[in-house]
């Protein structure tokens, strides 16, 4: 029964990872950018959430109403300035610039907020739960995060495949120059895609801030790698796959934790490497490889 519980907890945790991975997956799919500052941006969102709650006294769970739009704007501006400038100069520069951004953000957070851990206080919500049988306990917060992740990822998948704007984004992703010739400003579309990606990063950061403690270093130490692993496990270019990848990563970690608490992270990383060896195209995709 404890194994069943481990798997259920893994699925719940996987929702959070999928939410983190969503923005990374989108930015890679559209701009072909691997944003090394992704994890740190999520941590920034959590800190902004703390600030918003402290200043406006909105209930903590509603902080996203302010933080997500702010982050979308930041995403658009950052893409149109720094990231586009790096992108114009090639993949190497993009990696260097996003890595530099990651280090600057992490140290900036340490400078302003110290290395202490914080968390977004949502009162009793964090511990409220219901039980199934005697062994399995499901926290409402975890369930809400999973539901949000599913809604965001599937909603985005639907948006990209069915709406006119989504088609535009996919056209630019396929061939920015051809799209430009057809009268689409690919830079603007890149900015829109970044805005959506940053919005989901903000959501993920806030969810993480409610779910557990966070500090300035957790963005690079864990979140970036988890998000990346979820994307690769799921297979590139598919948000469905990213959701599945996040959940599988969560399950792998929880099964590792069931064997021994010290194996939680290692199990996730080794599962990722195993997928890379055995199915480099990811579990959902058929042909493309990384």
């Amino acid at each position, binding site marked *: 029964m404890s194994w069943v519980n481990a798997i259920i907890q893994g699925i719940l945790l996987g929702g959070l990872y999928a939410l983190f991975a969503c923005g990374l997956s989108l930015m890679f799919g559209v701009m072909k950018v691997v944003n*090394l500052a992704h994890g740190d941006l999520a941590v920034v969102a959590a800190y902004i959430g703390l600030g918003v709650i402290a200043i406006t006294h909105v209930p903590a769970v509603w902080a996203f109403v302010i933080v997500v739009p702010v982050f979308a704007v930041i995403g658009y501006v950052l893409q149109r300035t720094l990231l586009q400038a790096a992108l114009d100069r090639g993949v190497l520069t993009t990696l260097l610039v996003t890595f530099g951004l990651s280090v600057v953000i992490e140290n900036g957070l340490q400078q302003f907020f110290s290395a202490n851990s914080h968390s977004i206080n949502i009162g009793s919500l964090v511990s409220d739960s219901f039980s199934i049988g005697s062994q399995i306990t499901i926290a409402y917060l975890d369930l809400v995060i999973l539901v949000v992740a599913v809604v965001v990822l599937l909603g985005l998948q639907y948006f990209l495949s069915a709406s006119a704007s989504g088609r535009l984004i996919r056209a630019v992703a396929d061939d920015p120059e051809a799209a430009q010739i057809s009268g689409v400003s690919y830079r603007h579309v890149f900015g829109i895609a970044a805005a959506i990606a940053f919005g989901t990063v903000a959501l993920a950061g806030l969810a993480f801030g409610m779910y557990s403690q966070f500090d300035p270093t957790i963005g690079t130490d864990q979140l970036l790698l988890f998000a990346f692993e979820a994307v690769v496990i799921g297979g590139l270019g598919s948000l469905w796959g990213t959701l599945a990848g996040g959940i599988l990563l969560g399950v792998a970690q929880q099964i590792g934790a069931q064997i021994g608490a010290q194996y939680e992270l*290692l199990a996730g*990383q080794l599962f990722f490497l195993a997928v890379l060896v055995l199915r480099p195209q990811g579990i959902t995709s058929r042909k493309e490889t*990384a």
Partner: protein
Amino acid sequence: MSSLGPDTTAAAGPPSVPPAAAQVRVTRARRSTLAAAAAVVLIVAVLAYLPYLVYSGTTNLLVNFFTLLIMASMWNLLAGYAGLVSVGQQAFVGLGAYGVLLLASHGTSPFLAIPVATAACAVLGLPVWWLVSRLRSGYFAITMWVIASVCELIISQIPSFGGGTGTGLPGLPGNPTLLTADTYWATLACAVLALGVVYLLLRSRIGLVLTAVRDDETGARSVGVRVASTQRLVFLVAAAGCGVAGALYIVSQQFVEPTAAFSVLWSAKMIFITVIGGIGTIEGPIIGTIIYFVLQQTLAQYGTWYFIALGLVAMAIAIWARRGIWGLIADRFGIRLFGVGYWLSPAGPPDRDRGSR
């Protein structure tokens, strides 16, 4: 200007009149190159004599300097020449350090353990390369990071390595003066060797292949360049290079813990040093390490601001001055200290150092 090979002929002489082959003199050395060679010999001789002249504080600082120089040169070889951007080279730094620890705890002298641990890192680099070689750009970068994280997680589970809290390095000589001097000499020797390997590698056919691949990988493949085996060789050399840096790190610190040995800060330092100094040149990491050290010594009291500034400068240089500080110097004065390229000049009167390399 960054390319070697066939296209360099166009850059010599007056641009409108490309000289015929018979009128062109091809040389590898220039006055600046020969002067640099003489200077290198002199500088190494002075550096080797240094423990007799200065206090151990200075040599300890230089140990730090040379360790960073080795790492930056290796990262430069990997990213600047082979186009493999890794943010996980700390995997090999940590493995080098723990390799020395493993050997020393079984009675080997730590200094003898350095070359063995280095070779072990190159061997361990093989399976890692098998795993990551099919990945491109950002995927390669982060997967290397995951591998570093896996190494850290595994090593912190091993009780005889002190687990997560770290452990001291046994077997070092008791005399502190001797220990400082030996550490310094070992580091100096490794740094000279590492830079020598990089230089010879780039001067050889490998360097030509790497430059061809960097400039146009598809084109290079289509004329029969063996891209994969060359990149593998460079990856293994960089693995060994970062391994020796890690081995020197544990010997100089006399202590090691997993979070510090496998810290992504190693990669951050390698990247910032190389980008600021000038990526894709041998001189770049040297200039970069000097700049890094001067900044570190002067700004260290401002704590994290120092790293923020470094990151911002590296980002600005990556975007606006992609060949770094050394690129600016080399373009302004037309000098190359390490002649890995070819100079072309008209066979007639000697000209200024203005040719292509």
